[in-house]
C-alpha cells in the first residue's frame, strides 16, 4: 500500500478510507472536526468582512437605521480627503521604515550575539522580555522617556551638553511621529532579532567554513552566504513586521491618541475616529477596506519575493 509516502489525492484517500471505514462515517467526522470552529470563524470573521465590504458602498451611520447605496462615493471621498491621504502616507512611511529599521538592527545584533559566551546566552533571554510586554506598557515607558520635564531623553541630552535639543518630544509636531516610531521599533527589533537568531542556527557551519577557506572575507561570507540562506526567515520577519506596521493602533493610541493635531493618526486610528466620533459606518468601512487592500498588496509582494528566491542563487 502506498498511502504513507505520496500526498494522496481526494479520490484515492476516499478509496483508502473506504477500505478501512466507510466514506459516510469519514464525512461525519469531517463535519464534527471542521463544523463548529468553521461556523465560529464564518460568523465572527468571514461574514463580517463581507458585511464591511457591503457597508463601504453605503452611507450607513451608527445613529440611523436605514442606509442608502452610494456606490464608490466613500472611496472617492476618502482618497480625495487630505486627512485620509495623510493617514495613508503616515502608515506607508511607517511600513517602509518598519521594514528597514527593526530587521536591519535585529539582524546585526543577532549576528553579533550568535556565538558569544554562556553569559551572553543568559543575557539574550533577559533581552527577550520586551516582546512579552503589551504595547500599553511599552507606550507608558516611552512616554516617561520622552517626558518634557524629567524624561530620560531630555536628562541624557542635558548631561552630554545638548540642552538645546530638549523638547516635549510627543507634543512637538515635528518629532511626535518619529518618537512613537522609535518606541515601536524598540520592541519590533527584538522580534526580528529572536527570529534571526533562530534562523542563524539553520545556516550550516560547513558552508561558512568552505567560503572562508576559499578566501572570502567575513563580510563577503555574511552578504553572499548567510543573508541568502536567511531568505525564508527574512520573509517571515518582514511579513510579521509589515502586518504589525499596517495594523498599528495600540501604541499610537496609548502614546498620543493620534495627536498632536492628527500628526500621528495612522489609518487604524482614523478608522476608529470616523467610526466612534463621527459615527459614519460607511466611510469607516471604506477606509478599513483601503487598509485591507494595502495589507494584501504588501504581504502579497513579500510572499512573492520570498518564493522567487527560495533557491540560493541570484
Amino acid at each position, binding site marked *: 500500500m502506498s498511502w504513507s509516502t505520496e500526498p494522496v489525492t481526494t479520490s484515492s484517500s476516499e478509496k483508502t478510507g473506504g477500505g478501512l471505514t466507510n466514506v459516510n462515517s469519514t464525512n461525519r467526522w469531517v463535519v464534527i472536526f*471542521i463544523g463548529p470552529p468553521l461556523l465560529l*470563524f464564518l460568523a465572527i470573521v468571514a461574514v463580517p468582512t463581507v458585511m464591511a465590504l457591503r457597508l463601504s458602498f453605503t452611507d450607513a451611520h451608527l445613529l440611523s437605521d436605514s442606509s442608502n447605496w452610494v456606490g464608490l462615493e466613500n472611496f472617492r471621498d476618502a482618497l480625495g480627503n487630505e486627512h485620509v491621504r495623510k493617514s495613508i502616507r503616515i502608515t506607508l512611511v511607517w511600513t517602509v521604515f518598519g521594514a528597514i529599521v527593526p530587521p536591519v538592527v535585529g539582524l546585526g545584533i543577532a549576528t553579533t550575539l550568535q556565538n558569544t559566551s554562556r553569559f551572553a546566552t543568559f543575557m539574550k533571554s533577559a533581552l527577550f522580555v520586551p516582546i512579552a510586554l503589551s504595547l500599553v506598557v511599552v507606550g507608558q515607558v516611552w512616554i516617561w522617556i520622552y517626558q518634557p520635564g524629567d524624561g530620560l531623553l531630555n536628562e541624557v541630552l542635558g548631561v552630554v551638553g545638548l540642552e538645546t535639543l530638549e523638547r516635549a518630544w510627543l507634543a512637538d509636531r515635528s518629532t511626535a511621529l518619529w518618537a512613537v516610531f522609535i518606541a515601536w521599533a524598540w520592541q519590533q527589533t527584538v522580534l526580528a532579532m*529572536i527570529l534571526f537568531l533562530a534562523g542563524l542556527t539553520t545556516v550550516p557551519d560547513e558552508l561558512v567554513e568552505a567560503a572562508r577557506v576559499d578566501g572570502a572575507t567575513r563580510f563577503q561570507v555574511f552578504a553572499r552566504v548567510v543573508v541568502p540562506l536567511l531568505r525564508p526567515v527574512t520573509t517571515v520577519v518582514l511579513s510579521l513586521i509589515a502586518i504589525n506596521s499596517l495594523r498599528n493602533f495600540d501604541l499610537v493610541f496609548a502614546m498620543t491618541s493620534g495627536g498632536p493635531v492628527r500628526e500621528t493618526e495612522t489609518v487604524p486610528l482614523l478608522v476608529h475616529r470616523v467610526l466612534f466620533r463621527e459615527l459614519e459606518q460607511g466611510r469607516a468601512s471604506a477606509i478599513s477596506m483601503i487598509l485591507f487592500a494595502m495589507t494584501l498588496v504588501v504581504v502579497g509582494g513579500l510572499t512573492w519575493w520570498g518564493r522567487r528566491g527560495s533557491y540560493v542563487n541570484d
Partner: protein
Amino acid sequence: MSMTESAPRTEPGVLRRRAGLIVLVIFVGVYLVPVLGVVLTSLKTNAEIAERGIWAPTGNLTLDNYFEVWRKANTSRYLINSIQVTLPAVVISIAGGTAIGYALAKLRPCGGAVIQLVVVAGLFVPPQVLLVPLFTIFSDAGLLNTLWPMILVHSAVGLSITTLVMRNFFDQIPDTLRSAAIIDGANEGQVFLRVMLPLARPALAALATLQFTFIWNDFLYPLVFTTGDDVRTVMLGLLAVQGQFTVAFGTQAALAVIASVPTVLIFIVFQQHFVRGLLAGAVKG
C-alpha cells in the same frame, strides 16, 4: 572589518568577541534601562518621584504602590476579567484550529483547500475591518459591556494562525499512524485524541504561548466593546489608571508590572515555543 583578512586566525576571533561584548552592553542598556525603570518606579513613593524625577536611580524602596493600586483601583476585577477572556479564547482557538488542521491534513475532505484558504486569509484582515460590523452585531445582541465580544473575537480570529500551524504540523505525521490505529479498531475521534494530540504537544505549546501573549496584551477589542469599569481587562484598566492617577507614576508603574507578570513569566519559561510558533506559522504560509 577588512583587517581580519590577513590577520592571524586568533586575532579576529578576539576582536569579534570584543565587538560582540560592546554591542551586547549597548543593547542591554537600551533594553534593560526602560524595563528596570518601570520596576524601580513602582517601588518608589509618588512623593519621591515628584521631587527627584522618574528616572532618579535611588530612593527608598516600598511596596506601597502595589497596595494602593490594589485597594483604590479595580485591579483584582481587571485581572479576573483578563483571565476570563484569555483562557477560554486560547483554548477555543487552539482546539478549533487543531481540529480543522487535523481534518484537512488527514481526512482530506473535498473542498479542503477552499476551507483552508478562507480560514488562513483571516491573517490578513485588519481588525478595523471587523470592528465596524461587529460593533453593530454585538450591540444588537446586547453583548456590549460584557466579556463575550472579546472571547468570541479572539477565539475566532485566532483560528487563522492555529489552523495554519496545525495543518502544517499534521502534514508531517505519516498517514500510516492513523490507518494502523483504525485497523486496530479505533474510530476517528479516538485516533485524534489518543494518537495525534499527544504527538502534537510541542506545536500546541508553541501556539498556547503565542495566543496567550497576544490575547492578554490586546486592548483594542475591550476598548471598543466595553465602557464600564467592571468589564475592563487589565490592559484597558492600565490605560484607565493612567488617566485616573495622572501624576501618580509609582501607582501606574505598579499596575504595569502586575499586568506584565503573566506574559513575561510565560515567555521566559516557553521562549523556545514562542519562536517555533512564529516560524511554524509562516514557513509554509
